[in-house]
């Protein structure tokens, strides 16, 4: 486990195996919340935090609870439980205690991610968060690697959703055939960005 392997894990999660453009994880929340840049940025940041936390917690639960007690088959259930609790906690904190305890953070959050509250339910049911938890434990990563993986995967999701939101705003001026209006032309754009990202396939820091 050296810097090169950590960098490989990070670049792999952001570019080579991007969670949206390569693995399709989080597709539904990605498509719903990327119509404007504001919602996209808020959703991206929320999912990034959730993914980082979920990756670490999943690794810990797997190592100290599921494997010793031979309960690996409960992986899905346990991870969903963690994610639901995480999001519930975040919702509770954001409402009253955080703005009261740390008003500066609250003001920053409301300025940069005005629609954060609205996207939390989406985060709870996002395949990306459960996906990162499953992948970080099934790929046999060490603790530090799983932290890096979680943060990088979240950064990849944020990058993807922000890029896509900007392209989607530009699609307002496009003149596509009537049958393609709405989701189809958005999917074509996503496919073209995925084509661009395919250049990073097999990226490895040697």
């Amino acid at each position, binding site marked *: 486990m050296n810097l090169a392997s950590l960098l490989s894990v990070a670049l792999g999660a952001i570019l080579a195996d991007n969670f949206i453009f390569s693995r399709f994880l989080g597709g539904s929340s990605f498509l719903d919340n990327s119509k404007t*840049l504001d919602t996209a940025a808020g959703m991206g940041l929320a999912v990034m935090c959730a993914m980082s936390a979920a990756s670490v917690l999943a690794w810990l639960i797997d190592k100290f609870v599921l494997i010793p007690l031979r309960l690996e088959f409960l992986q899905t259930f346990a991870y969903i439980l963690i994610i639901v609790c995480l999001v519930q906690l975040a919702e509770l904190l954001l409402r009253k205690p955080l703005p009261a305890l740390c*008003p500066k953070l609250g003001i920053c959050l409301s300025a940069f991610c005005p629609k954060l509250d609205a996207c939390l339910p989406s985060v709870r049911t996002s395949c990306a968060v459960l996906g990162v938890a499953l992948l970080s434990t099934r790929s046999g990563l060490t603790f530090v690697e799983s932290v890096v993986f979680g943060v990088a995967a979240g950064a990849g999701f944020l990058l993807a959703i922000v*890029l896509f939101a900007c392209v989607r705003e530009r699609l307002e001026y496009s003149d596509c055939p009537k049958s393609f209006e709405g989701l189809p032309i958005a999917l074509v754009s996503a496919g*073209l960005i995925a*084509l*661009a990202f395919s250049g990073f396939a*097999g990226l490895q820091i040697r």
Partner: protein
Amino acid sequence: MNGKHRLSAASSPHICSPFGTRSLMLDVLIALIPALCMAVYFYGPRALILTAISVGGCEFMEFAYRRLMKKSNTLGDLSAAITGVLLAFVCPVTLPYWIILIGDFFAIIVVKQLFGGLGKNFLNPALAAHAFLMLCYPIPMTTWAKPLEWPGLGISVPGAVTCAAPLSAEFMGSGILPDASLGDMFVGNIGGCLGEVSALMLIIGGAYLLIRGVIRVRIPLAFIGTVAALTFLFPQGNGHLRWMLYSLLGGSLMLGAFFMATDYVTSPVTAGGELFFGVGCGLFTVLIRYFGSYPDGVSHAILIMNSTVCLLDKAGMPARFGVAAGRRKAFWKKFRAGGKGEDAS
């Protein structure tokens, strides 16, 4: 909209300019002619025929699509012709004709016309088609003919004499300098795609475009400069200067920097955006060349930066007078007030 009524009512001042879409595109085509001549010299008449088929395919598909969708005929603006030429230039001369027609279809119909035509696409059509063909037909797209051993004119030429391109895994892909001399690399006496081999001719074409004012110098300078700096600093065990020169002259860097990255539709409008775009292209090119699985990262690097252009334009948008500063002041006021325990809502 009746095409007969060409009078448009607009208030003064009116500026008369010799530049129009068609004249700009014509300039680009003229700038590409030297590279085409060099390609014919090294690879024979098949180079010309492949380019002609590509251009014909693009023009036909644009005409057919717009006819089917009952839209105006835009063949006159020559943009489809340029896409055809550029797509042929990034393909090897031994590519079967039916493959380049599939590439034409993807470039014109999927990348350009589906979004509404010229000006509405967000990716460079020729490069997107190149990436598409690289994924679909990797072997024909990476079989390069040996220069001066002209391949035949048939639909596909399985018996052509081939060689390895300088950037492929046999040479620079593994950190080894190719056995072609720098002079050969500059003139184009190497294996590679049709239009990318002759750096000399491409630089001449690029200079023509700069002199005519069709392109600005920022993007090519930033792009080539970044690749030069990065390859000079990290020569993968070879001499700094030699590795840098080989990296600049090999692959489609010159073609990409002067003709593809500078495409008006898919590059930023602001000066800062253009610089950032060029640097980003250079960075990703070197990243893919050194660590990725494609030998030449230029086309994918430009495609990635194309998808960030919308973001760059938004970020570089000039602020409305008084509005942005007002918003910033309000934010800091709230921030400072919130710290003193007042209600921050």
